[in-house]
């Protein structure tokens, strides 16, 4: 009897194995991750494929970031030729939903993945909600941070007893600190992308939020005193440029180069530049460095963030089998569970359990700035907002000249409101 059972169990196992092997579920995957984080994503995909060999296979393709990616997704989903799963910026969800490009995640889906509202920071989960429905699963939060050259800050007496920067809060105080760094022998106190108002939107929007200001949304952009608060936020950067503590009309790669070469003592940039620093440090080409939440220049801590999330396109005219759908959910769950590795790309894992893990808490400087997820602000929920959106474009047109003191801040924000109202 015992032997019979053994044989029965073995044959069942073999049968089921054979059955699975003959039906490897392929999951077609599109992402827009081209840089250091792209390398890490490819590793995660490989690991998943190895762990699920014979069951599920991800076939990944990396496409161009920004407008080209979203246009392709939109057009291909409309004719049923989209992927099974794709990465998406939470900030771009409202437009996609209005165009019917995305499928909703149902309560059963969330249960199947073992994830839910409590798995994420409040703002991050809210960002994937459109009209009370969820259209994506947050994978990370990627805010901007303040990178600093620890050697230079220490020389200027700006490193506290805990080894972290200190004495940077307050608008005037911060600018004085930048001046001190410049006087201490740095070419600039702070590097940031001043040639690209669309990119600098992230910084300026953070300072708007620090004054409890909001951008508003379609039909009600920048109402009341928000316009004045936005002008204050623009003026902060314009003042740095005027004082010469921040270089004028500098593009993204130059800003990074100024910081990594030691010419600029600090830099405001996205967390996705962490791998650049880590790699340079490994090669012994970098000073002591760190990254912290943006200092509070106004009334309260607040930092711009967006989220890379996973979304399922609504492929028109194509029905998804339950097996395929389950495979897609399994992929998302795997990625959420293994997002600790993703954190090495600088991004803050959206999965709160991973963020709370001892391994993440030991990861530096990630663990230091991760606390900012309590004070983050996402793009306004509008079909015209999000990365590479008309809002970013309007910011590019308004802020670029104003940051470099070619136009005064008041005129710039008035123009921005006018162009947003005209959308």
């Amino acid at each position, binding site marked *: 009897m015992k032997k019979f059972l053994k044989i029965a169990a073995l044959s069942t196992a073999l049968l089921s194995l054979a059955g699975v092997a003959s039906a490897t579920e392929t999951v077609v995957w599109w992402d827009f991750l081209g840089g250091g984080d792209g390398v890490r994503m490819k590793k995660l995909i490989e690991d998943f494929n190895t762990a699920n060999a014979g069951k599920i296979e991800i076939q990944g393709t990396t496409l161009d970031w920004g407008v080209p990616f979203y*246009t392709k997704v939109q057009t291909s989903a409309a004719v049923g030729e989209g992927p099974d799963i794709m990465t998406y910026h939470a900030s771009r969800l409202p*437009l996609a939903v209005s165009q019917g490009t995305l499928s909703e995640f149902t309560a059963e889906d969330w249960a199947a993945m073992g994830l839910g509202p409590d798995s994420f920071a409040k703002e991050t989960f809210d960002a994937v909600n459109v009209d009370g429905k969820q259209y994506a699963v947050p994978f990370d939060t990627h805010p901007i941070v303040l990178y600093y050259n620890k050697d230079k800050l220490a020389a200027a007496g700006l490193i506290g007893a805990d080894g972290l920067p200190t004495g940077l809060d307050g608008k005037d105080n911060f600018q004085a600190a930048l001046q001190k760094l410049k006087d201490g022998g740095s070419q600039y106190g702070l590097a940031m992308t001043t040639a690209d*108002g669309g990119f600098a939107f992230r910084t300026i929007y953070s300072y708007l939020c620090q004054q409890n200001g909001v951008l508003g949304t379609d039909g009600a952009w920048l109402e009341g005193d928000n316009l004045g608060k936005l002008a204050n936020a623009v003026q902060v950067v314009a003042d740095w440029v005027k004082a010469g503590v921040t*270089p*004028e009309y500098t593009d993204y790669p130059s800003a990074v180069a100024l910081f990594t070469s030691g010419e600029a003592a600090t830099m405001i940039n996205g967390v996705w530049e962490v791998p650049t620093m880590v790699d340079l440090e490994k090669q012994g080409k970098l000073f002591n460095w760190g990254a912290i939440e943006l200092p509070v220049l106004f009334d309260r801590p607040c930092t711009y963030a967006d989220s890379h999330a996973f979304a399922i396109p609504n492929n028109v005219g194509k029905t998804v089998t339950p097996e395929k759908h389950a495979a897609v959910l399994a992929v998302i769950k795997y990625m959420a569970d293994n997002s600790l590795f993703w954190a090495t790309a600088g991004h803050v894992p959206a999965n709160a359990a991973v963020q709370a893990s001892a391994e993440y808490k030991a990861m530096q400087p990630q663990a230091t700035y991760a606390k900012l997820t309590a004070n983050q602000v996402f793009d306004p929920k509008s079909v015209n907002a999000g990365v590479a959106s008309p809002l970013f474009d309007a910011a590019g*047109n308004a802020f670029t000249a104003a940051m470099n003191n070619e136009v005064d801040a008041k005129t710039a924000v008035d123009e921005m409101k006018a162009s947003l109202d005209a959308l």
Partner: protein
Amino acid sequence: MTKNRRGEYLVAAVLVAPFVLIFGWMFIYPTLQMVQLSFTKSPLIGAGTWVGFDNYVRMFGDKLFWTAIWNTSYFVLLTVVPGTAAALAIALMVSRLGGWVQSFVLAAFFLPYILPVTVVYLIWDWMLNVQFGIAQFLIEPFAGKRVNVWRSAPWFMPMAALLTIWWTNGFSILLFLAGLRNIPRELYEAAALDGGTRWQVFRSITWPLIWPVTVLCLTIQLILQLKIFDQVYLFAQGGRTQSTMVLVQLIYEQAFQKNSSGYAATVAVALFVIVVAFSVLQFQLLRSRGGNK
């Protein structure tokens, strides 16, 4: 006789049919669709609603449209005639060289033409970088300080024109060189015997005989430069896109970024009309001038 004729027509019809069908399907039909689209309010994907001439009314009142018209015209002005003149000058110089030196110099001038626009963008972006760019050593004495030319309205279009001429001139040079080689040697020999100066030779022999090639180059350049997009789009990204907006960029922005295909189609129709009008006008004008000679 008539029977024979009919047979000829049939053969001709069969021979041109593949072209006519493909041209009709790939070019005429989409063009008609575009005109139809311009009378609707449509998203990028999906059906729109008929709005009559609303888009056209909007276009004529759109400040950005007129900015784009102005910038496109300015760019054409800066590239078409100067670029063709430069190509002729270079071709005249190259034609005086001989052997491998000529091949080498010609290759050097043609090289940029085979580069994709993204590479051209990166090269010039590096050279003109405000912090580290090598070209800033040339700009600084003029402007008194380093200038981010892609963020400065007076610099933007002339710089875009300069790099476009650098990039696309190789082709015009080749055309001119072929034209120069077609001018019979005897004419130059006769002129030399008569003691013509270099300027007289150019004025009375080279210039009139190269005129048809010049017309061709000008026409190709005009159509090409009216459709300027890549360079301006790449260099203006993230900055003051509105002040440097050109027509094709406006179409792209409306259709793909603002999800407004109807209005994008309207601007496209306007560009279509402009291109057709300009090229017919220019070709007729230049041809008649050539004929009088």
